[in-house]
């Protein structure tokens, strides 16, 4: 028995860059170039603004995907984290003249610190209980924001002045003050965040997360500090969401606490699951569902409230038939359809003359 098992010496351990990988890289490049250069040309301003929101929320769903898909942690407080990022960025943008990228990083780091503070006690919990705690946190932040308000160019710690008549907009970077330019700017920031996550997934944290998600005992038994890596994931997700908040602040110019309702965290998790939490494409699909679809419906004069029902059905569909989400299911189904059609063409239906 042992002889038959030992026989061969180990073959390749790591795969070299293969053809599918090259094709994937090419597809990504073409899509990005199209998004950056062609989209702003062909879309109306309405849809350019929408796509800016898609870029912003793709970062949020990316962060949610890291937590849910990579580590197996469910957060229902992501909208509150986004709000913190937006608040911090708006405050810094009004108060200082620092360059925009620096402010985005600062907003990310401060939001990360807040996320870690929440995470420290919360990470002792899992599953439903962690979800509950994060939801409560989101609720608390909403209440605080409703009282404190978003900065509107006032002074003091909160930066809010209720008696201002002419409220100045949150500024944008000078190189990206127009809507199409800011759209490109948002996409580039989103790309950087996707690369940041990719760098994590492909290296030690990614392997540790995979181990933790699949078997925390095994991870511990291999000497992985599971607590540290879970906190790390929480920190990374908070950082990315904080940066997204910073981009959002410039995108909308004026921030109001009612734009960050607690229940949106739940919808966000739903679309993230629908898009797919195991691939980064899922985050893009989720953001399109979350921001582009409602804009489309609005444009057609259909109430976007229908989407809540649609998302409910969508999550049910995904959880029962495609755990890896639409980002995994749709290409597979299309490939299957393609094979089916090709098969039909090659082999004429019985009874036809040849």
């Amino acid at each position, binding site marked *: *028995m*042992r002889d*038959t*098992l*030992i*026989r*061969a*010496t*180990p*073959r*390749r*351990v*790591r*795969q070299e860059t293969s053809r599918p990988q090259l094709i994937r890289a090419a597809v990504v490049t073409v899509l990005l170039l199209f998004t950056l250069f062609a989209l702003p040309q062909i879309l109306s301003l309405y849809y350019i603004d929408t796509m800016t929101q898609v870029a912003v929320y793709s970062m949020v769903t990316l962060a949610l995907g890291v937590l849910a898909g990579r580590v197996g942690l469910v957060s229902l407080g992501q909208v509150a984290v986004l709000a913190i990022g937006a608040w911090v960025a708006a405050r810094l943008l009004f108060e200082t003249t620092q360059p925009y990228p620096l402010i985005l990083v600062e907003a990310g780091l401060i939001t990360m610190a807040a996320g870690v503070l929440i995470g420290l006690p919360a990470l002792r919990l899992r599953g439903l209980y962690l979800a509950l705690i994060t939801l409560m946190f989101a609720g608390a932040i909403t209440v605080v924001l409703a009282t404190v308000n978003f900065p509107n160019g006032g002074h003091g710690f909160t930066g809010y002045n209720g008696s201002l008549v002419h409220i100045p907009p949150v500024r944008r970077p000078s190189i990206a003050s127009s809507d199409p330019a800011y759209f490109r700017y948002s996409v580039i920031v989103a790309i950087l965040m996707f690369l940041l996550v990719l760098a994590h997934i492909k290296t*030690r944290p990614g*392997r*540790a997360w*995979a*181990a933790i998600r*699949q*078997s925390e*005992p*095994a*991870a*511990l*038994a*291999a*000497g*992985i*500090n*599971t607590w540290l890596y879970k906190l790390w994931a929480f920190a990374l997700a908070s950082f990315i969401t904080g940066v997204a908040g910073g981009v959002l602040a410039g995108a909308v110019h004026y921030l109001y606490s009612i734009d960050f309702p607690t229940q949106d965290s739940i919808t966000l998790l739903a679309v993230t699951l629908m898009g797919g939490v195991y691939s980064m494409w899922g985050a893009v699909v989720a953001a399109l569902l979350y921001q582009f679809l409602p804009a489309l419906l609005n444009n057609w004069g259909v109430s976007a409230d229908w989407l809540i029902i649609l998302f409910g059905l969508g999550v049910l569909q995904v959880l029962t038939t495609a755990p890896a989400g639409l980002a995994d299911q749709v290409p597979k189904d299309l490939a299957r359809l393609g094979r089916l059609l090709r098969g039909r063409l090659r082999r004429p239906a019985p009874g036809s003359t040849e």
Partner: protein
Amino acid sequence: MIEVTGLTVRYGGVTSLDNMSLTFEQGTCGLIGPNGAGKTTFFNVLSGFVRPATGTVRAFGVDLLSMAHFRRARWGVRRTFQTEQAIEELSVFDNVAMVHEHSKLGAAARKKDVLDAIEFTGLAAVSPGAKVRTLTAGQRRLVEVARAVVGRPRLVLLDEPAAGLPEQETSHLADVIRGIPEHTGALAILVDHDMSLVSACCATTAVLDFGRLIASGPTAAVLRNDDVIRAYLGVA
């Protein structure tokens, strides 16, 4: 060498280990007893998943209980689990290499060590790049064993590694388990209900019943012990 004195573990009102003391010297040692006797709890204490109410554990002169669980694993306390815990979506290589994530070895030395461990368990016919989800139950067990023996372990805890395996794979596993002390220099402790496996692997064996040590010594003598027969083995 591992010395355990006065170990007590309680889960609420249930006492799982009751003032247990025992010593394992070297080689592969057996730990047997009926279900609920406290064998897995003992492993959980050693690997740091469970904090005992009282007692001390010294392994090779080191106070184990003062170390955090992941540090114990890095120091050399390794284990397999009753329900196999090989990570499906990672490759065989990455499953084993997990242990080296925090080691100070260079990349080449790590790779060699990981491949050595895989070969030691007799898994070399499987490509190290193969995902664990493509392996059979027996091969997954071996991946777990490889993860437990890679990177100079000091203490290898095997929790029912042969559960559910066909006879042929069990006999291969026995060869592997017997080889662990020589291959790694570690003390191995085997928990199993398969007495032929325990007899084949372990020179000495300890028996737990209701959280207490009821016998220990050379395996053959322990298996003939009247108390052990009454509490666990039953009359043939």
